[in-house]
């Protein structure tokens, strides 16, 4: 079967075309770099079958981020039979740069000229046959979002010549000479052009044996002397000149330039004064809709449905007369825990849905643009904002999103601080415990959890940057894509992808966890015999024993019973299960799902306000759940870093809870809360002041701006 690779700039509609060709349920986002790994799908049309590979979008084959590296390496390996290069017709000049890089290979290629609908509003006409003859490869105009031109594209794919293309020598003689000199050493035109642009960084040439490098160096020095221009700019410059002449011949511009819709929207959304309040307003609305009255209303309805369903099953089991341990397993173990988790699903779905609307429309890129100034203070870039925002929903997709960051250090820092961002799974813990203990002040307590999480994340980012990851100097350069109307289909697919991830987790890891917890909490030794325990005997359970054993460690941070210790332990499996476990352990399993308030008396009997607060802070900051740890391992890439991150989080959580509980116990509760309040106000105030003060003079002194070397050059 033929292997066909989809290659194009970020945001050129590549994933939409992939979905159109393969009909698969993949996510699409209007955020540069949503495709984080290469995806494979099958194209079937009549008798024709082919494998389609969707690669992360790149602007150029000179990669700077990890996901771009995936694409570059894949192209250099030449392990495909055909390239479909997607070119955004509305942004044709820059898109053709990558096209020119690809044309230097001998891989057969077809250009899918996408977004023809938007291009038609920008240009009078695009002469496709002319473009074909100038580029020397087939060009098919399409509008992937409207499924226009896909059949024509498939027909062209079907009849394409699947044999090596002879790369045309399209540059000036001087440059072509240099390329052939490099080619004579490297043996490949594509690699020669890569070397021309990237030097020894290209295809890890610096790792070849020293003799080879030396011979290459000699040629490089010879060729460098021939050009006045900076050597790494020679080829890009030539390419862009070439592109300009193509555009001149192919595009008929409109006589009057009209203000684009994007311009109009951005006049408001990134406005100098209104931009920031609007941004805060939008973020607040998203969280208000997900976790405020609307979200709660939908959740209540959903939970009511689950409860009806479970009671039906419970009746069924009773009527069937099954063994006592079976009904205990099903009702207490599986449904008791699972319903607490599923009850949280509507809010998560709403959050994911709005985030995908923001991504698909193109606003997320603006959010990064607006937030960059703030995040830079903490050594991060505006792009870190997106992973952190997703982190409020769930750490797992958030960590995967760090792959769009350019430097490995930035990715590490962002990955390690994401667990401190209070994820959606922790919300029910705050909701129920704060509701039980702090009553009318509960929303303040919940809000303070989010603030503490953000502050600790910022503190950790600065700490990591100053100590172990000094190389971090988050770069920022980003395209602002044109605003697009999010399509219902794409938004729902996008949301479904994320919800599905959560459901799979609930159905596998969580289900297993609840069965284990049920077994550990309903079985134990009573008077020397191992048996199923009655509800009032839960103290003798295996889990109870473990909790009692570990209790001394948790005593200093205010834990007074083994139940809360055990609940925290089960949180390592999944944060959602902390509430479920408390329900099981305090013997109110079947009722927790109906309403959290049924847990209130048990909680009120166990926790003082101080203990509750300490418990919440520990639950917030401690090591994330198994699923997030697995994601973290993937992004950090080594066990050493993973161990460090998890230990760091455990220690931070313990120290924070210890401080709160011990200082609080000294009768300094009021004092402490005043102190915290003052500190928070001070930090916020001084940050704002500094930002205002520094407005417009980013590079006051040369030290520390990250471009020291170049500053000197400018002075000269």
């Amino acid at each position, binding site marked *: 079967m033929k292997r066909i690779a989809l290659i194009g700039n970020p945001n050129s509609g590549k994933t939409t075309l992939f979905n159109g060709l393969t009909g698969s349920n993949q996510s699409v986002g209007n955020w540069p770099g949503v495709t984080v790994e290469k995806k494979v799908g099958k194209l079937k049309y009549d008798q024709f079958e082919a494998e389609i590979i969707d690669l992360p979008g790149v*602007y150029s084959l000179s990669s700077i981020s990890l996901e771009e590296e995936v694409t570059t390496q894949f192209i250099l390996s030449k392990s495909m039979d055909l390239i479909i290069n997607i070119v955004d017709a509305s942004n044709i000049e*820059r898109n053709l740069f990558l096209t020119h890089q690809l044309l230097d290979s001998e891989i057969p290629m077809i250009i899918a000229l996408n977004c023809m609908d938007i291009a038609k509003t920008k240009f009078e006409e695009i002469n496709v046959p002319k473009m074909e003859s100038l580029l020397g490869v087939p060009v098919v105009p399409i509008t992937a979002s409207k499924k226009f031109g896909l059949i024509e594209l498939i027909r062209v794919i079907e009849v394409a010549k699947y044999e090596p293309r002879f790369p045309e020598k399209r540059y000036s003689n001087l440059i072509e000479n240099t390329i052939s000199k490099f080619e004579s050493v490297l043996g490949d035109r594509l690699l020669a052009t890569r070397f021309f642009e990237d030097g020894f960084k290209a295809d890890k040439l610096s790792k070849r044996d020293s003799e080879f490098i030396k011979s290459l160096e000699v040629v490089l020095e010879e060729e460098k002397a021939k050009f006045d221009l900076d050597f790494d*700019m020679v080829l890009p410059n030539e390419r*862009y000149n070439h592109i300009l002449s193509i555009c001149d011949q192919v595009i008929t511009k409109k006589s009057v330039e009209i203000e684009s819709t994007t311009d109009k929207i951005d006049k408001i959304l*990134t406005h100098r004064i209104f931009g920031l309040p609007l941004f805060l307003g939008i973020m607040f609305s998203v969280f208000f809709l997900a976790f405020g009255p609307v979200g709660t209303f939908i959740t209540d309805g959903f939970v009511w449905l689950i409860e009806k369903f479970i009671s039906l099953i419970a009746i069924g089991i009773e009527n069937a007369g099954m063994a006592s341990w079976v009904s205990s397993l099903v009702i207490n173990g599986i449904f008791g825990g699972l319903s607490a988790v599923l009850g949280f699903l509507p809010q998560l779905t709403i959050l994911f849905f709005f985030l995908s609307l923001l991504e698909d429309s193109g606003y997320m890129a603006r959010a990064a643009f607006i937030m*960059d100034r703030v995040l830079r203070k903490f050594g991060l870039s505006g792009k870190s904002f997106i992973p952190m925002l997703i982190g409020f929903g769930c750490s797992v997709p958030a960590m995967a999103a760090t792959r769009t960051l350019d430097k490995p250090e930035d990715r590490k820092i962002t990955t390690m601080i994401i667990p401190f961002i209070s994820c959606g799974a922790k919300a029910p813990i705050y909701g129920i415990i704060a509701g039980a203990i702090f009553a009318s002040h509960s929303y303040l307590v919940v809000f303070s959890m989010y603030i503490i999480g953000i502050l600790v994340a910022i503190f950790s980012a600065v700490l990591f940057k100053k100590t172990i990851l000094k190389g971090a100097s988050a*770069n920022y*350069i980003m395209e*602002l894509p044109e605003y697009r109307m999010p399509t219902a289909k794409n938004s729902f697919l996008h949301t479904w992808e994320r919800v599905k991830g959560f459901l799979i987790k609930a159905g596998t890891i969580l289900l297993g966890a609840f069965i284990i917890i049920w077994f550990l909490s309903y079985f134990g030794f009573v008077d020397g015999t191992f048996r199923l325990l009655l509800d009032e005997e839960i103290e003798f359970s295996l889990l109870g024993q473990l909790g009692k054993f570990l209790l001394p460690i948790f005593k200093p941070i205010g834990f007074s019973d083994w139940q809360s210790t055990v609940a925290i332990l089960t949180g390592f499996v999944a944060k959602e299960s902390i509430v479920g476990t408390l329900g099981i352990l305090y013997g109110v399993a079947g009722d927790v799902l109906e309403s959290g308030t049924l847990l209130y008396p048990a909680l009120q009997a166990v926790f003082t306000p101080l203990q509750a607060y300490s418990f919440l802070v520990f639950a917030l900051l401690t090591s994330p759940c198994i699923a997030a740890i697995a994601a973290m391992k993937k992004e950090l890439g080594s066990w050493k870093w993973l161990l460090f991150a998890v230990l760091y989080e455990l220690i931070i959580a313990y120290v924070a809870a210890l401080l709160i509980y011990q200082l609080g116990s000294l009768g300094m509760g009021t004092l402490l809360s005043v102190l915290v309040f003052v500190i928070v106000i001070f930090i916020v105030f001084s940050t704002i002041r500094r930002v205002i003060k520094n*407005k417009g003079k980013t590079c006051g002194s040369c030290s520390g701006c990250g471009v020291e070397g170049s500053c000197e050059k400018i002075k000269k």
Partner: protein
Amino acid sequence: MTLNELKPGQSGKIVRVYANNLRKRIIDMGLTNGTTIKVKKLAPLGDPMEILIRGYFLTLRKAEAKTIEIERIGDKA
């Protein structure tokens, strides 16, 4: 003068791109010598800046903009 000195609405032509962390990317995104740049606006907090180049919108920090030498050209309304 350098790119960061341009005010929103003003245009310039690139004379040279000096070394910085993102030099290669800046070049590949189309900021080659002789290219016309128009500054669209600054972010609400004063930095990064948004520029119009080769028909699309690019945002970059002033720190990098400072390493791009330009010459001012007549402002079109």
